[in-house]
């Protein structure tokens, strides 16, 4: 049996991947929070998903821009129609995006809220109640146009290091170009945060991600910057070594290669199965798929394989508008559960830029198994022409099929429930005792045929959108998932064989704990 399964997996993937089907449940799911505002909210519109009720189902937080944000409690039944209940728990104005993170590791999810003005750390009190913990945690929320976030637990720290990206100096009205304000690094001092460290130079970040790009054990901070507003800028990466000040990767010292794009979002995954993270960078017109050229060189020198892979997503593929696209939130996920990572990209005009597509459908690009991707957004039913910004690809009703929630500028969120037949899947929660309960910085290795696919567990990236919750892995026809966890401290868990169609809670040096939605 095992041999047969292997043979099935080893066969070349079908050129025509199975197209998932989605039902648009926007009208009935209960969301009623648009991302509002004018120039000050031309970027942002993030979505955060996390479980704060303790039932395992992810809640949805929607940024409201100049309006109020909202937290929606998940009232969906397993496998059923999507149903959410709006609460006032996180009704905050001037919100651009948010990321869940259990900062104090108390088991109640906290939320990092990025704003026009003071950022807020909303401490989870349990049962989806929150309080502003800026003062209690010594967090200086600043007064900026905050547009990016990433977090990591540095070695030896019980609290996370937070990186916050900032955008234009909003007081510069006639000459905003070149006015990018400093990004900040909030490092912990015990169980609170020290004064923010400016990450100078800063170039109007719209996405940040801590990632162990070279598997050194020391994640670096990638920053994707909007070239529209910087001068002398480029994409960036920072060294972050314990007890050392952050240090920029340079061309001279590190072999960093200059890239200047309208950086909007970062998605990371080992889509090439070379053991190293690849990075999809959204922009306007062509988007990038960065693949490490030569890991042995030790240099962060990346080839752009977007064209070769068919995921430039540079213009609409349906709807008749042939102008270049504007891409925001990217996310890799195995949407059709065939064991191959697919790519979702939220699309939408900045506002009314006539040189860019006004009818700009979201992309759903399915991996074909040969390194290329096939666009199926229209066939799958998610090719919305709304002006999308943030998003999450997440299993909202815990049926093993990934659903999609997208926040749109002015018109409000859309949500699609995946229907139809589901391939094999397994979903994991990593939980470790003490600090960093959700194991940010861990790696899940899943063995596929003769390859090992590595998944970094990160907090950050995307376009002002993040998630903590069940980690979803598609399995195709395989009855089991062969995987292991490398925990943030570097300890390697045992290889596990977990049954398809199950939820599993994994802890260091412990037997997997099956979990069933109630």
């Amino acid at each position, binding site marked *: 049996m095992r041999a047969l399964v292997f043979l099935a997996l080893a066969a070349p993937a079908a050129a025509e991947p199975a197209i998932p089907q989605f039902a648009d449940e926007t009208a009935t799911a209960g969301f009623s929070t648009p991302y509002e505002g*004018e*120039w000050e909210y*031309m970027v942002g519109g993030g979505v955060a998903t996390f479980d704060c009720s303790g039932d395992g189902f992810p809640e949805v937080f929607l940024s409201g821009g100049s309006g109020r944000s909202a937290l929606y409690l998940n009232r969906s039944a397993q496998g059923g129609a999507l149903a959410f209940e709006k609460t006032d728990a996180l009704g905050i104005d001037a919100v651009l995006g948010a990321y869940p993170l259990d900062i104090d590791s108390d088991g109640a999810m906290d939320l990092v809220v990025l704003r026009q003005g003071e950022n807020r750390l909303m401490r989870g009190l349990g049962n989806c109640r929150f309080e502003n913990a800026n003062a209690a945690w010594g967090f200086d929320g600043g007064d900026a146009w905050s547009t990016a976030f990433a977090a990591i637990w540095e070695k030896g720290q019980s609290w996370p290091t937070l990186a916050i990206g900032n955008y*234009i100096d909003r007081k510069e*009205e*006639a*000459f*905003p*170009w*070149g006015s990018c304000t400093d990004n900040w690094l909030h490092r912990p001092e015990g169980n609170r945060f020290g004064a923010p460290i400016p990450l100078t130079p800063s170039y109007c970040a719209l996405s940040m991600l801590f990632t162990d790009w070279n598997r050194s054990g020391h994640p670096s901070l990638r920053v994707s910057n909007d*070239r*529209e*507003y910087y*001068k*002398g800028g480029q994409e960036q990466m920072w060294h972050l070594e314990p007890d050392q000040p952050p240090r920029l990767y340079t061309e001279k010292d590190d072999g960093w290669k200059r890239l*200047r794009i309208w950086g909007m979002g970062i998605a990371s995954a080992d889509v090439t199965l070379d053991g190293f993270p690849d990075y999809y960078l959204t922009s*306007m*017109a*062509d988007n990038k798929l960065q693949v490490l050229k030569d890991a042995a060189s030790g240099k962060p020198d990346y080839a*752009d*394989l*977007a*064209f*070769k892979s068919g995921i*430039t997503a*540079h*213009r609409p593929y349906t709807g008749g508008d*042939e*102008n*270049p696209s504007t891409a925001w939130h990217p996310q890799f996920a195995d949407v059709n559960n065939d064991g191959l990572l697919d790519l979702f990209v939220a699309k939408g005009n*900045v*506002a*009314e*830029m*006539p*040189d*860019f597509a006004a009818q700009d459908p979201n992309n759903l690009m399915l991996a074909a198994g040969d390194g290329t991707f096939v666009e199926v957004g229209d066939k799958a039913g998610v090719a919305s022409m709304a002006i999308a910004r943030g998003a999450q690809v997440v299993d909202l009703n815990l049926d093993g099929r990934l659903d999609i929630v997208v926040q749109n500028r002015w018109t409000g969120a859309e949500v699609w429930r995946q229907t139809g037949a589901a391939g094999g899947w397994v979903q994991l929660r990593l939980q470790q005792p003490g600090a960093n309960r959700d194991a940010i910085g861990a790696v899940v290795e899943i063995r596929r045929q003769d390859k090992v696919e590595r998944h970094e567990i990160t907090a950050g990236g995307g376009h002002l959108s993040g998630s903590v919750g069940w980690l979803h892995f598609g399995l195709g026809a395989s009855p089991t998932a062969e995987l292991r966890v490398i925990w943030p401290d570097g300890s390697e868990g045992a290889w596990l064989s977990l049954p398809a169609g199950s939820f599993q809670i994994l802890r260091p040096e412990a037997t997997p704990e099956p979990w069933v939605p109630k």
Partner: protein
Amino acid sequence: MPFHRRQVLGFTIAAPFALALKPALAAARADVSREVLLTWHKLILELVRHTATYMPPVAARAFAYIGVTAHEALASGNPALRSLAGQLTDLTPLPARGEGEFDEPCVLHAALEAAVTGLFANTGPTGQRAMEKMGQIMGKTASEGMAGDVVDRSVAHGRAIAAHVLEWAAGDGGAVIENMGFPRSYTPGTRPQDWVPTSAIRMQQAPLLPAWGQNRPFAVPDMASLDAPAPPDYDEAEGSTFHAYATEVYETGKALTDEQKLIARFWSDDAMLTPTPAGHWISIVMQIADRDALPVEVIAPTLAKLGVAQADAFVSCWSTKFKYNLLRPVTYIKRHIDKAWEPLLITPPFPEYTSGHSCQSGAASTVLTAVFGEDFAFDDATHVDEGLPVRSFPSFAAAAEEAALSRMYGGIHFRFGNEAGLAQGRAVGAFAAALKTEA
């Protein structure tokens, strides 16, 4: 005898205007006009960088129309200045001023505001916001202390000047830019020397603006007469002339000094990251205007001539580019010398011959030499904000020659493309330099 900078200003620039000494109020208003002109141009440089369709030829075109607008706005009320109507192709006489008092800063501001918002109507929300704010700021600056009826009359006239220029501009073949200038379909040539795409950017699998060379020129009566001679015969054999030119690019690129890298990046002037090559030369004039406190009556016609020269240079160069459709050095070198070679700069997405930057720099230097004189030394801080240092030049010609050579340092042009481009640009620029802007 080489002229000293101050001598040039004293004898060839300041003199004509010194003859018409103005009362103190008029002088003060001229200072306001100067501020209006330079501040709007500061914004225009940013708009060029931040408007997605403003590829280098498109930017040069806009600078020309804006320069002509400003000059005509001033010329309509200054008998010492001469209109370009009848001198530039298809430019008919501009609206004359009616009865009553006019205020020059208000005329100029209104003309610039209308021209800029018209030419940059497609810029993004930040550009729109900046134009609106600039309109408010400069409108207030221009009209402060002036009688309302004078302001209204002047604004109406300025807008009429701009409308006339914009209507003229609409028919030149370059007014509509789709898909950021890249054709949505393209059939590449089949000869071994034909240009092929050089990047993995999907949009750039077709060359930029292949029909630009057919646009209506501003000052050149017969563009075909200025076409560059054919490039060296294409040859892949080692020892051939063509191979030697490619080898020169390759060897130069492998052994670049820090100074050569700096020169390459200084003149790189990439679209959407800088004001483009044409904006670089506009910036040079603005810096000289600031350093030498040039009067608005000098700055405006200079910007007009410079804009015209650069716009015509791009039309001429693009005509040549798509006539010969020559491949870029990176293509030849990777095919025949070293498949792993990479140039320092990003290779622009259009054919090599002739070099556009060389051509328009040749045109620009010809105009500026005609205005300011030979051996006119200047410093260029255009890219200080980008982290590049100030460079100093003994003359406009020297700057243009460095700009041309920079393209070989950058690995994006053969020497012959640069040299032919310079010569082509100088010939084009001579027509703009010959325009009569003084009565």
